[in-house]
């Protein structure tokens, strides 16, 4: 379907143009991971083994914020403002529209990861990633998984005003638990079990292997399986509950 591809591309370019016109979105996308890196780097200064863990952890968080958080926000906003309903009334194929929206989010993921990887090389002494294939596989799996979970989560959020509360109620605990379990060897077993069952910690494990230690894909298949299972669940939920309109009443 070449025509659908052309329309997907046009939608993607439009989404990019709108992204750059929204200064606060652009700021959060590029400055926030840098701030986390700078703050973490200042605290952990001189402790290379800690810096080795900081960079992939921030990279994992970047994947989650550019997909899960950004898409949950976007979908709720577009739904409540009636943009989705209007698009639905045009001949633009649904796949082209959602493809353009998703590709926009993935572009931001790629840009953020590039910033984090570059910072790791230039300022944090962890060099270039050691396992590029593993990096690409984990990032792709993480993107599909967390993007679909973000779209699915949008179904739960009743209106735009409460989006920040809903998203942070998930994002912040997941980040805290995952960072804690990833970093602290002495974390309680219960916390580690929870973190290992959620998608972010396995993603960070995979990124750590790819970016720092160079343990190959084969050593992180468990982590990849957890992400994959969440991904299947997320895609199923995202498609099943998708609503184009504000709920009435």
């Amino acid at each position, binding site marked *: 379907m070449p025509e659908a591809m052309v329309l997907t591309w046009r939608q993607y370019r*439009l989404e990019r143009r*709108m992204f750059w016109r929204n200064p606060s979105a652009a700021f959060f996308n590029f400055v926030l991971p840098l701030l986390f890196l700078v703050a973490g780097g200042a605290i952990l200064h001189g402790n290379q083994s800690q810096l080795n863990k900081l960079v992939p952890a921030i990279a994992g968080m970047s994947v989650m914020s550019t997909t899960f958080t950004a898409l949950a926000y976007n979908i709720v906003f577009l739904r409540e403002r*009636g*943009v989705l309903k*209007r698009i639905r009334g045009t001949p633009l194929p649904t796949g082209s529209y959602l493809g353009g929206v998703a590709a926009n989010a993935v572009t931001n993921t790629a840009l953020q990861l590039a910033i984090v990887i570059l910072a790791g090389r230039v300022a944090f002494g962890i060099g270039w990633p050691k396992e590029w294939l593993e990096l690409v596989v984990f990032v792709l799996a993480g993107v599909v998984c967390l993007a679909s979970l973000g779209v699915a989560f949008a179904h739960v959020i009743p209106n735009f005003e409460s989006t920040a509360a809903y998203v942070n109620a998930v994002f912040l605990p997941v980040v805290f638990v995952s960072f804690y379990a990833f970093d602290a060897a002495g974390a309680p077993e219960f916390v580690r079990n929870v973190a290992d069952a959620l998608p972010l910690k396995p993603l960070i494990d995979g990124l750590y292997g790819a970016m720092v230690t160079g343990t190959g894909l084969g050593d992180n298949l468990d982590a990849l399986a957890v992400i994959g299972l969440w991904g299947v669940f997320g895609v199923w939920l995202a498609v099943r509950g998708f609503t184009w309109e504000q709920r009435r009443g």
Partner: protein
Amino acid sequence: MNANAIEVRDLHKRYGEHEAVRGIDIEVRRGEVFGLLGPNGAGKTTTVEILEGYRERTSGEVSVLGYDPARRQIELRRRIGIVLQSGGIYSLLTPREALAHWASFYPRPRDVEEVLELSGLAEQADMRSRKLSGGQQRRLDLALALVGDPELMFLDEPTTGFDPKARHGAWETVRRLKQLGKTVVLTTHYLDEAQALADRVAIVKDGRVLAIGPPRELGVGGTRYRVAYRDGSGELIEYQTDDPTRLLNELTGAALARGEQVRELSVGRPTLEDVYLELTADA
């Protein structure tokens, strides 16, 4: 090709216990402006959203330009334009950018510059849409529906919340759509709007069509006249008659014989408002 743009037979729509549409029959001819008039909650929007393909009907037959809208075929969506009551716009784009993007969805779009001109947005063409006034945003709604050059346009309460000047501007645009040969389906709860714009009107209440026809002919019984005057004692008298000539002759003859005036005499057809109020009054 069918002479009617839209055919609806015995349409029903049920939401759980509530039956929003209870057996509606409508035909909309090609090239006409068809008004769906009724109080809030009458089933107008539900009916129109079934025609637009947003909702699935519970039962009944529906044909829009020969298609079943519930199947959501892309071929049908290329030929219709929809102006929603609260369609969101991309606030970060200019009208020119939004129209160029929308135009790319359609096989034979209208020229963007022409649509800007037609919808009265030429001066705002390069402003971010969030800076447009409410009325200008509604004009952009219309422009976005028009840019694909559809044969059939749906306008859902296009002037709700407009001041009188903006309303008359929107009315002019609807008349221009008709001149362009478009078929227009308009929902409204304003009587004057239906009277001013629609070739034919269906009055809808409680999910049923109560009356259908050209606004001027939508009388109860069709031809009844209303004759009113004030008699010698100052009391207001009102008659309804099918034969005003005879009634007036008798009235004026009797008054002349008594040497009285027939004061405040008026002869009128029932307006759409009379018909509407009579039909939609709660029994």
